[in-house]
């Protein structure tokens, strides 16, 4: 059978975790520290410049725009994703069980298509000359919208597409949460004379509060770090007014070849992500504890 060393549980256990550990260490932890190192070099990566890259960024108006835009983008998009997801989940949960699968399946399609590819479709919908949305608006006697060329509408567009891609995730999470609420609670509430709104505010919301929190925090991370939509739709334009951390880092680091500066831009996401991750972890733990 097994050699003596492997018969002991911890030895086998550690052995089985070695590939995972190697992956996390070599391709996540190491790159992270390497990024910290890179961010302290000059553009040619020949000299140590300390925090010069960061102070350079702090002095650039574009960088502060990127910070503001990223936060605005993440917050607005997540709020709408959460609202649409909750409304859709509630609607699906209201209709007879038989038809629920079908509706859910249709609504998940945006989330199933690789975002870079579906964003191509949106790009075509926003195309200045041929925009099929504008064609519809014109028929309704609404003036055509400059979707991607005007700052406000460009920001609106990337948020719209992000909401379109991400709302189904909220839908799934909320629907699962709604289904986990025992029906008896609603029956008891009905006995106590609660109406639909009261049932929603006094039973549904408190029961799924934790899932709402975890899903929202999680989505803020993903949205804050978004790349595909802006990259395909606007490439950061017009005049850098739609750049996010990721697209700006790509522009600076890969396209302009200033790898240290690009690394510095990316790293700006880290404190925010770390705080969010900490809160999520605490929530997940608390939830696990409350279930135990």
């Amino acid at each position: 059978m097994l050699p003596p060393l492997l018969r002991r549980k911890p030895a086998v256990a550690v052995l089985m975790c070695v590939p995972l550990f190697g992956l996390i260490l070599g391709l996540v932890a190491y790159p992270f520290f390497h990024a910290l190192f890179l961010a302290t070099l000059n553009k040619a990566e020949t000299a140590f410049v300390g925090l010069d890259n960061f102070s350079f960024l702090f002095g650039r108006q574009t960088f502060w725009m990127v910070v503001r835009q990223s936060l605005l983008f993440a917050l607005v998009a997540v709020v709408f994703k959460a609202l649409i997801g909750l409304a859709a989940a509630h609607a699906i949960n209201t209709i007879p069980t038989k038809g629920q699968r079908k509706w859910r399946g249709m609504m998940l399609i945006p989330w199933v298509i690789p975002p870079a590819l579906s964003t191509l479709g949106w790009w075509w919908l926003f195309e200045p000359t041929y925009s099929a949305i504008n064609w519809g608006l014109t028929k309704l006697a609404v003036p055509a919208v400059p979707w991607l060329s005007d700052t406000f509408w460009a920001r609106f567009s990337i948020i719209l597409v992000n909401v379109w891609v991400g709302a189904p995730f909220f839908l799934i999470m909320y629907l699962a949460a709604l289904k986990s609420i025992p029906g008896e609670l609603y029956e008891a509430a009905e006995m106590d004379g609660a109406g639909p709104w009261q049932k929603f505010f006094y039973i549904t919301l408190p029961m799924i509060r934790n899932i709402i929190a975890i899903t929202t925090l999680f989505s803020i991370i993903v949205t804050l770090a978004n790349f595909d939509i802006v990259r395909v739709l606007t490439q950061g334009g017009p005049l850098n007014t739609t750049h996010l951390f990721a697209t700006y880092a790509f522009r600076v680091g890969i396209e302009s070849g200033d790898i240290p500066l690009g690394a510095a831009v990316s790293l700006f996401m880290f404190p925010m992500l770390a705080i969010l991750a900490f809160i999520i972890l605490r929530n997940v733990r608390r939830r696990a504890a409350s279930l135990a």
Partner: protein
Amino acid sequence: MTAVPVTGATSLRANRRWALIAAYACLGIFVVFFLFPPYYMLVTSLKTNAEIAELASNPWIVTDGVTFSHYEHLLTESSFPRFFLNTTIVTVVVVAITMVISVLAAYSLARLRFWGSGVLATGVFLTYLVPDTLLFIPLFKIVGWLGLLDTYWSLILVYPTLTVPFCTWIMIGYFGSIPRELDEAALIDGANHLQMLLKVFIPVALPGLIAATIFAFTVAWANFLYPLAYIYSESEMVLTVGTVTTLIKGDVFHWGGLMAGALLAAAPPVILYAFLMDYYIAGLTSGATKG
């Protein structure tokens, strides 16, 4: 006395009916919102170039006859089949690597407990929260050192950082929910660790395994940032980047081919979901909520 419950019942029924009508109306609006872009992509891909270029007619329907010429062109005269093959190779290899690493680690972390296993499990969860956009620049350097720049092997190297943490996490959840009695029964039946894993844990947690596989597949198929940053040669490109970069040639009237390419590239994950959606949803929701 009898009249009161009767009116109560009808108003209750009326309430329910209104709730139902509101729900369906709401769902109708959402479905239109969620489905009109792919619908428009499909319509465009079936139009002739002349019709696409024509501004007067209704863009939302095909008026001038359906054509498959965009798809034909894509499959016979472009690099699209090459992209498809590359994507398939990358995805299959990444899924295989991911499942081996995740299943081994999840079994160990869910059941065997060793010094530091709790910390490692938390580490897995935190790694899952690290987005691709945080580390793509240092990974660019690493890929370069390894000589993998401009080959799809770079993707095979880095994609597991995106897939393994989540897959391990949900497999820990699935393995953890297997009653301990079952391992004990297998132990008394004489199973060693490998037999326990292969003959008891994996078959019992098959739904979780399917969910994890779909997740890994989707991530590997859909990623856009890494191939955009690391691959420049058309022969090494994968579908996402290939479709976005090479099919756009500044030709204003190439929209039909672009939409056809996007739809074909999106087809495998969509088809996979159509059949295995329930597994994936179960895995996703349990992964995000189980502690």
